[in-house]
């Protein structure tokens, strides 16, 4: 069953063009020129209940504008939108009760007070029944280790601890949907792992639908099967990670350690990515050549002490798509 549904969602911002200088400022008093900026051009997507989706795109692609429309903060210019049966901007409060939001850069905890007090306030804002509150707190504390710093003023928490607190705060009222905006930004490896673990468990165990926007593709690789790529306000890819990887990751790389030093080095069908001393990185198109063929050709001519195969990284695939655009016809053709 679809829990989030948007059809040709569009958002256009109109802003005043300001000419520089005092003359410009004076002119702006009398006549105004407007500039239209299409933040979200056309976003159509459907999310089933319990899905965990990575919503990705370069800066300025329209990610956070989409999230703001889904959360009811912004009213769309055109298009349809429905979240858990509610039109967010028409029924903001009803929608708000269904959702939880974590802005990685902004905390909703009260700076000056022990963490516990923020939870108490949120309990009353979302009207969480007492016993449900206790259960949730116990559960979150167990996964996130909140007990250690429940009594510490938020301003004294480390970023990792604060983020854990923010996650618990966003999920306290059992929202059906959680929006995570850059949830792991600035965190160290351990804290990132704790957060990912938590998001994964909430999604699995409670069936909470999660939309995750992030720059750290490791978050996505670890958590979501499905990703939606957006660029210039339009969805350019919507599907599984695996499909993206096989369709778009046309090249694999062999890392070869040569046993002897060779003046010249070349293998048919392979492109030398880098060569440092005896270590050579050799890129080849896996649709044309199997790894086996490549290795056989290599071993025919050179003496090799070690070989490793590197799968295309999702990060480099996505970066390439941002750069070159997603193009169905490009898939499978040599590049």
């Amino acid at each position, binding site marked *: 069953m679809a829990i989030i549904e948007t059809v040709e969602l569009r958002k256009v911002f109109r802003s005043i063009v300001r000419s520089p200088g005092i003359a410009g400022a004076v002119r702006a008093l009398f006549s105004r020129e407007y500039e239209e900026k299409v933040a979200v051009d056309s976003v159509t997507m459907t999310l089933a209940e319990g899905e965990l989706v990575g919503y990705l795109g370069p800066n300025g692609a329209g990610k956070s504008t989409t999230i703001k429309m889904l959360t009811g903060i912004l009213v769309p210019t055109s298009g349809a939108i429905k979240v858990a049966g509610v039109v967010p901007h028409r029924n903001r409060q009803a929608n708000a009760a269904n959702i939880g939001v974590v802005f990685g850069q902004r905390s909703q905890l009260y700076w000056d007070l022990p963490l516990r*007090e923020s939870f108490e306030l949120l309990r009353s804002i979302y009207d969480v029944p007492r016993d449900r509150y206790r259960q949730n707190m116990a559960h979150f504390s167990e996964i996130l280790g909140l007990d250690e710093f429940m009594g510490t003023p938020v301003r004294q928490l480390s970023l990792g601890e604060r983020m854990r607190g923010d996650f618990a705060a966003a999920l306290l009222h059992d929202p059906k949907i959680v929006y995570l905006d850059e949830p792991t930004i600035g965190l160290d490896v351990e804290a990132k792992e704790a957060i990912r673990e938590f998001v994964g468990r909430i999604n699995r165990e409670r069936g909470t639908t999660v939309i995750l926007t992030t720059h750290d593709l490791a978050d996505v690789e670890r958590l979501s099967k499905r990703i939606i790529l957006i660029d210039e306000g339009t969805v350019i890819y919507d599907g599984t990670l695996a499909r993206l990887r096989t369709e778009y990751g046309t090249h694999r790389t062999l890392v070869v350690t040569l046993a002897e030093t060779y003046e010249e080095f070349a293998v048919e069908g392979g492109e030398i990515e880098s060569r440092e001393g005896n270590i050579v990185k050799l890129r080849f198109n896996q649709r044309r050549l199997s790894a086996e063929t490549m290795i056989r050709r290599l071993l025919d001519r050179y003496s090799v002490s070690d070989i490793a195969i590197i799968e295309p990284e999702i990060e480099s695939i996505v970066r390439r798509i941002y750069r070159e655009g997603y193009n169905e016809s490009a898939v499978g053709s040599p590049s």
Partner: protein
Amino acid sequence: MRVAAGVYRQYWRINILTTLEYRENFLMWFAFTIVYHGAAIAALWIVLERFPSLNGWNFRDMAFLYGLWMLAHALHNTLFSAVGDVPEHVREGEFDRILVRPLDSLFQIIATPGQVFPDELMLALAYFGVATWYSGVHIDAMFVIFVPLIVFGGALIELGIGLIVSTLSFWFVRVDALIWIVVQLEQEFTRYPLGIYSRGVRLLLTFVCPFAFMNYFPASYFLHKPDNALGFPPIAGLLTPVIGCAFVILAYVFWRFGLNRYQGVGH
């Protein structure tokens, strides 16, 4: 309603905890509050020692005039001071947080915890008691019934103005200049009887930013002063609660309008 009451209780709990957390800081600000009002009253006293009458008002009258304003102002600061932070929240992008929570936006603003404590209100009550006695205002049933209503109405007037200015921050990123002007009108112009001002300013303080209803009109009523500002009958001084309610409703409608615009345009 039940939810709102729960949130409001939590709000005060957090306020008091925060105040206790920063005890020294709180005491310093309380000292400042005393000095602020003390200096204003002292200035009135110094001037009226030398010039016994300002437009027919002596120091005793002026002390009562100030007391009425101080009480309404302190009540506003105790209940609604967070409204003044809206422009900053909008500028910093913190305002979005309010929109993703399932409660009325204005209620959430009012119930944003900070370091609020009813210290100024207590000070104002004490001062008002002294000033009432000193000015010789006759305490009768009318006084007992109407003063609380008038004080609350005055606080609503201040809330209304704050709300209107805050709503303007949805359009204009910087509204500091406007806030300053309004603060001056509210805090400094209310110290003197309305009759000394030019007609335009009298009308401004009565109909546009109705601060004259916070203290001048009610004080004229209780002190039996003829209103020489706009020639209203004395009973106008009892209208403050009505004016306050009407003004706040107007401001709330404007706020909702601005909010729709904020959601339509972003910022």
